[in-house]
C-alpha cells in the first residue's frame, strides 16, 4: 500500500513519526495557502502530486468559516499574501466571497487550471483586479505549447480550453502567470521558457508571465516516474542558509479542512500535519519527506 493511500485511510495526526531530514527554521508567516477545494478537481492530471480529481473527496472543501478563520489567524500573524489552491478553486461555490475576504486583508493569488474561466467569471476577475487595493493574481496551469504536449497529462481537450481562458483574460487586460510543469524533456530544456513566452505573445498576451515547476514524484505522478525510489534521501546535514531561508516551509503554511500542514505538497501526509491552528504550526520542522528533495535539490518554490 502506498504512503498516499495510507494517508487517505488514516486520520491525520499531530505527531510527526520521523525525526530525520535537515531542519528548517520557521522564520515568520509570509504566505498563507488555503486548500479551499481540498482534492476536488474537474480534471485528473496524470502528474498531480495530491491525486485530485472529480471523485477525489479525501480532503474535503473548506467551509467559508474555515477559510475566513484561517485568514484571520494569518492576519494576526502578519501574513503578507494568500494563495487559494485545490483541487480547482473555482469549483468552490463561494469562491467569490472567499476572494473578497482575502483581498480585504492581503494580496491574493488563485491557482487554477483555467477551465472554469468563462466570460462572466473573467469579467468578475477583471473588476475585482481593478477594484482591489492589494494585488489579485491568477496562476493558470498549462503543460505544453500544443495539445500533443499538454493533453496527455491534463486531459483530452484541455489545451484548447486553457488557451481560450488565457485569451479571455488577455482580452480583459489581465495576464495570468502561466505555470508549466516540466513533465517531459522538451519542457525542461534551457530554451523552453523563451519559447513559451513567444508562444504566449503569439496568443495575444501583452505581458506574458511564466513559471516552470519541476515534477513532484508523489501522488498520481508516482505511477509515471516511480517516485523517489532511485534518489538518496536528504540527510540531516544543515542546508545552506540561502536554500533553507527561501523554502516555502520557512515562511509559509497551508490551511486545509483537516488542519494546518507544512506546505501544499504534503497535505496527504499525516506526519506533515502541524496542528489545528496556524499558531500551532508556526514552528521549525525537519524535511523528512521524499518530495522535499524536489524543493531542496531542484529549487522548487511554489510561490510565484
Amino acid at each position, binding site marked *: 500500500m502506498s504512503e498516499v493511500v495510507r494517508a487517505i485511510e488514516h486520520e491525520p495526526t499531530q505527531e510527526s513519526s520521523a525525526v530525520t531530514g535537515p531542519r528548517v527554521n520557521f522564520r515568520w508567516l509570509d504566505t498563507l495557502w488555503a486548500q479551499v477545494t481540498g482534492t476536488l478537481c474537474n480534471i485528473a492530471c496524470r502528474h498531480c502530486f495530491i491525486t485530485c480529481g472529480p471523485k477525489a473527496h479525501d480532503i474535503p472543501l473548506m467551509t467559508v468559516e474555515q477559510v475566513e478563520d484561517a485568514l484571520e489567524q494569518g492576519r494576526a500573524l502578519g501574513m*503578507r499574501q494568500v494563495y487559494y489552491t485545490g483541487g480547482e478553486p473555482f469549483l468552490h461555490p463561494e469562491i467569490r466571497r472567499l476572494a473578497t475576504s482575502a483581498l480585504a486583508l492581503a*494580496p491574493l493569488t488563485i491557482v487554477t487550471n483555467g477551465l472554469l474561466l468563462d466570460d462572466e467569471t473573467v469579467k468578475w476577475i477583471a473588476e475585482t483586479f481593478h477594484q482591489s487595493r492589494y494585488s489579485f*493574481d491568477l496562476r493558470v496551469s498549462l503543460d505544453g505549447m500544443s495539445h500533443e504536449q499538454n493533453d496527455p497529462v491534463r486531459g483530452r481537450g484541455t489545451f484548447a480550453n486553457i488557451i481560450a481562458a488565457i485569451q479571455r483574460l488577455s482580452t480583459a487586460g489581465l495576464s495570468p502567470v502561466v505555470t508549466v510543469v516540466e513533465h517531459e524533456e522538451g519542457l525542461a530544456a534551457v530554451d523552453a521558457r523563451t519559447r513559451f513566452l513567444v508562444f504566449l505573445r503569439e496568443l495575444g498576451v501583452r505581458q506574458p508571465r511564466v513559471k516552470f515547476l519541476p515534477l513532484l514524484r508523489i501522488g498520481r505522478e508516482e505511477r509515471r516516474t516511480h517516485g523517489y525510489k532511485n534518489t538518496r534521501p536528504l540527510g540531516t546535514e544543515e542546508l545552506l542558509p540561502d536554500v533553507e531561508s527561501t523554502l516555502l516551509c520557512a515562511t509559509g503554511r497551508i490551511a486545509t479542512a483537516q488542519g494546518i500542514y507544512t506546505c501544499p505538497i504534503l497535505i496527504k501526509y499525516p506526519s506533515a500535519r502541524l496542528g489545528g491552528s496556524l499558531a500551532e504550526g508556526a514552528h521549525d520542522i525537519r524535511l523528512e519527506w521524499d518530495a522535499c528533495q524536489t524543493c531542496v535539490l531542484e529549487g522548487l518554490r511554489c510561490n510565484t
Partner: protein
Amino acid sequence: MRAAFFGGIYNNYLALGAALQDARRRGAEAIYCLGDIGGFGPCPDRSIEILRSENIPVVQGNYDDSVGNGRPDCGCGYTDPRDNHYARISYAHTVEGTSAAHLPWLAGLPPRREVSWVAKRFIMVHGSPRQVNEFLWETTSPDDFLERLVLDARADVLLCTHTGIPWQRELPSGRRVVNVGALGRPANDGRTEVWYAFYDSERVQPFEFVPVAYDYRRLAREMQREKLPEEFVETILTGWWTTCLEILPAKERMRGRY
C-alpha cells in the same frame, strides 16, 4: 525639519548629483542614502566617491554587502531566470569596476540607521527591517503586515527602497511607511526622471516624492560605451523597465510597457 532620502543609486552618479543639488535647493538639513550604490549603470566608483566625499550617511543595501564582502551574487532576491540573468551581468560589471579601496567602506555600512525628529522615530533600512532584500511593493504589503514590521522595528516612520518604485502609506495606527524609490533608474512610469523622497515636518503631508531630471542621454551613452546591455539603456531612455520584470506584482507590472 527638512530631509531627503535617496534609494537605489545603481551607479547613476549623474542622477545622484542632480538629486543632491535639488535637495539642498529645497533646504534639506539632512540627506540619507538607503543603499544599493552599485548595479545597472556605468562607472561604479563615481557614485561611491560622491557619497563619501559629501559625507552622506548610507544604509547598506544587498549590493553594497555583496560587493564589499566579495559575495558570489548581488543578493537581489530575484526568483526568475530572466531576472537573474540580467542581475548577473549587472553585478559582474559593478564588481569589476569598483576599486578595492572602497570595499571595506561598503562592507562596513550599517544595515539600518535611525534618527528622531519632531518626537518621531525614523528607521531607515534597505529592503525591510527583517531582511535586506525583501521587496516592499505597494500592492503586496498589506496594512497588518506593515503594522507588525513597524512595531517590531519600533518605528514611527519606516523608510525603505529596494523595489525601485516609490510609494507611501499612513497606517491605521498613524505610523507611516515610505518606499523612497530609486535614483538609479526610472520608476517604470514612462518618464525619464528618477525619484527621491523629501520630508518637511511643517507640511500636512510631510513626505513628497520628487522627480529628478538629469542628463539621462549622457548616462545612456556611457552605458553603451561600457557595453552594458541595450535593455538597460532602453530603460534609461524610455522610462520603461525591460528587466527585473518578473518580480513585479501584477498591478505594478500592468502599469508598465513590458
